[in-house]
């Protein structure tokens, strides 16, 4: 009652303000607006400035050496005489460890987020989520030290058994699920109840035997692998995935939570099980948020320097065969960090500018992936809102 009275009083007095006061109000308004605009503009300008200054020092490299060597040769000998600046292996190394870490972190992160938002009871979630987010607070040099001093020797001495156990741990539940689901799906068309159960039992046991053989023989094969050097792409991928995980888990969990209670309850009310609700309702509804989480996590892995610098081994070659994660690689970020000290006007300009060319390349890659994810998010929203 009272508030309303005040409001009307304020409004009516606003009608009778003097011209001077009105002018003052106008100035305050535009001053406030321009302040907000300025702050927003500064953020945008910083991005443009970074782009401009990196590009300004990157372009001379291409003027001196041209494009083809940088992108097609993997001969990286910047300190030799004559120097060679083939960055193909380094670009490949960056993409390789990023893909490897995404391969580990994305499924793990999304599964963990589903578990947090839809499976664990609320009381437990309150404790688990902060612990996962704590991973993000560990400095990257500590991760790097762990990778170099603990994980690398571990991979060298117990590489085979570690791979075998990892395979068993991951593959067992998946194969179990696959056996049950596939045997059930295959017999759905049989109408006779008794016959269906019989066929299903036979199919399930046949699939089960195949699965066990698969588990065993792949495990044996993995156990025989001897890892020559522990500072390799696998090591880096594992550590980078740990670093990307908190981002992916936390942002996708928020996205899953943002799918309201009404959606979930509507689905249950129609008789859907929890698995059906999660897979068919919640995940599609949260997909744009999850995609944003994945992109953020991947960007974190692509841009990470310290861990890669310490744990990748830094050998600038394309592994043989190309998917061999057990060889050491070199990445763009590590090359920039490692060569920056030596490279300046003293040691010849191409050597200095090539690092900026690499920086520009990283910037362009992240801009493109940001742009693509933005487009996908927009399209997803349109589909979900039924347009």
């Amino acid at each position, binding site marked *: 009652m009272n508030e309303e009275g005040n409001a009307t009083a304020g409004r009516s007095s606003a009608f009778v303000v003097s011209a001077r006061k009105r002018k003052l109000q106008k100035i305050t308004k535009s001053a406030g607006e321009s302040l907000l605009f300025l702050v927003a503009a500064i953020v945008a300008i910083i991005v443009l400035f970074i782009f401009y200054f990196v590009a300004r020092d990157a372009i001379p490299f291409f003027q001196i050496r041209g494009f083809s060597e940088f992108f097609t040769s*993997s*001969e*990286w*000998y*910047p*300190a*030799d*005489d004559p120097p*060679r600046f083939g960055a193909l*292996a380094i670009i490949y190394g960056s993409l390789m460890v990023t893909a490897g870490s995404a391969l580990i972190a994305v499924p793990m992160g999304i599964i963990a987020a589903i578990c947090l938002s839809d499976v664990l009871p609320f009381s437990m979630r309150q404790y688990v989520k902060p612990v996962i987010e704590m991973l993000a607070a560990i400095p990257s040099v500590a991760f790097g030290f762990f990778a*170099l*001093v603990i994980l*690398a*020797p571990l991979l*060298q001495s117990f590489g085979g058994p570690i791979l075998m156990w990892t395979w068993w741990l991951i593959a067992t539940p998946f194969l179990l699920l696959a056996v049950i689901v596939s045997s059930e799906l295959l017999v759905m068309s049989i109408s006779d109840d008794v016959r269906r159960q019989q066929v299903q039992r036979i199919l399930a046991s046949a699939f089960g035997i195949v699965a066990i053989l698969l588990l065993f023989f792949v495990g044996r094969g993995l156990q025989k692998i001897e890892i*020559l*050097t*522990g*500072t390799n792409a696998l090591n880096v991928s594992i550590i980078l995935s740990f670093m990307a995980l908190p981002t992916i888990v936390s942002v996708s969990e928020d996205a899953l939570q943002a799918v309201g209670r009404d959606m979930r309850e509507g689905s249950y009310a129609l008789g859907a099980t929890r698995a059906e609700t999660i897979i068919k309702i919640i995940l599609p509804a949260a997909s744009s948020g999850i995609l944003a989480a994945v992109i953020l996590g991947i960007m974190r892995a692509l841009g990470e320097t310290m861990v890669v*610098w*310490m744990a990748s*081994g*830094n*050998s*600038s*070659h394309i592994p043989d065969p190309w998917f061999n994660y057990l*060889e*050491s690689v*070199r990445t763009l970020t590590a090359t920039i960090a*490692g*060569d920056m*000290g*030596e490279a*300046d*006007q*003293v*040691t*010849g300009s191409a050597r200095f500018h090539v690092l900026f060319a690499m920086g520009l390349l990283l910037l362009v890659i992240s801009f493109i992936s940001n742009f693509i994810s933005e487009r996908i998010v927009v399209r997803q929203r349109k589909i979900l809102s039924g347009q």
Partner: protein
Amino acid sequence: MKRLGKKLSIAAIVLLTATGSAEAGNSIVIDGSTTVGPLAKSFAAYFTRKYNIAVTVSESGSGNGAKSLINKSCDIASMSRPLKPQELSAAKSKGVNPISNVVALDGIAIVVHPSNPVRSLTTAQIADIYKGKITNWSQVGGPNANIVVIQRESNSGTQESFKEMVVGKENPVTRNAETQASNGAVKSRVSLTRGAIGFLGLGFADSSLKKVAVNGVMPTPVTVKNGTYPLSRPLYFVTNGQPSGSVKQLVDLPKSVDGKKIINELGFINKY
């Protein structure tokens, strides 16, 4: 976070140049080689204790040491290789007159994992390993195991000395070679990796690694000093102009009894 880091580094640079320009005062800044690092640090501690003059030591590689000296942000560049012609001309153009003072001698030890039975390699074999022509230990009388080649980053003086003395300036090191940032990192990688071969300053080669004889000569203080060990080199304190005052005292420390003792304790070799 990154912007904060940038601010901090700018602050650090400002501080560094401030201390650098205060050369005439009572502090000395040393920057450069990680090989010379332990020596420079011990000298600094001794100097601070004896004359109460603060000595700051950074280890960022010989190349960075030279750069700091040229930019006048340090008083002494510690280097494990001589200055390059480009660095000399860059120094001249900035009005810096670099004078190299030898502080000690050092051997580059070729090291392998302690379990490796190989005892001796020739310089030609080492060169072939680093060129990628020899890839298995069985080719040099060892077990049938692949060789993990470990080298240093290109701003390392040890790397440049090694390359010049063994591989040859014009020959590229194999692309499969892993690259480590410091003597310490090479030591930890080689001591933990069965098939590894690496090279580092003699002072760093402790019992966690196995030193290999080169052309039949083991790296020891005696063989480095009398020149029979093929991979030896002088270590330098490079100053701007002839050293004077407290900088001269520091540069001349290796000629004193205490200085020689420090050099011996750290596994380096006296020149004087």
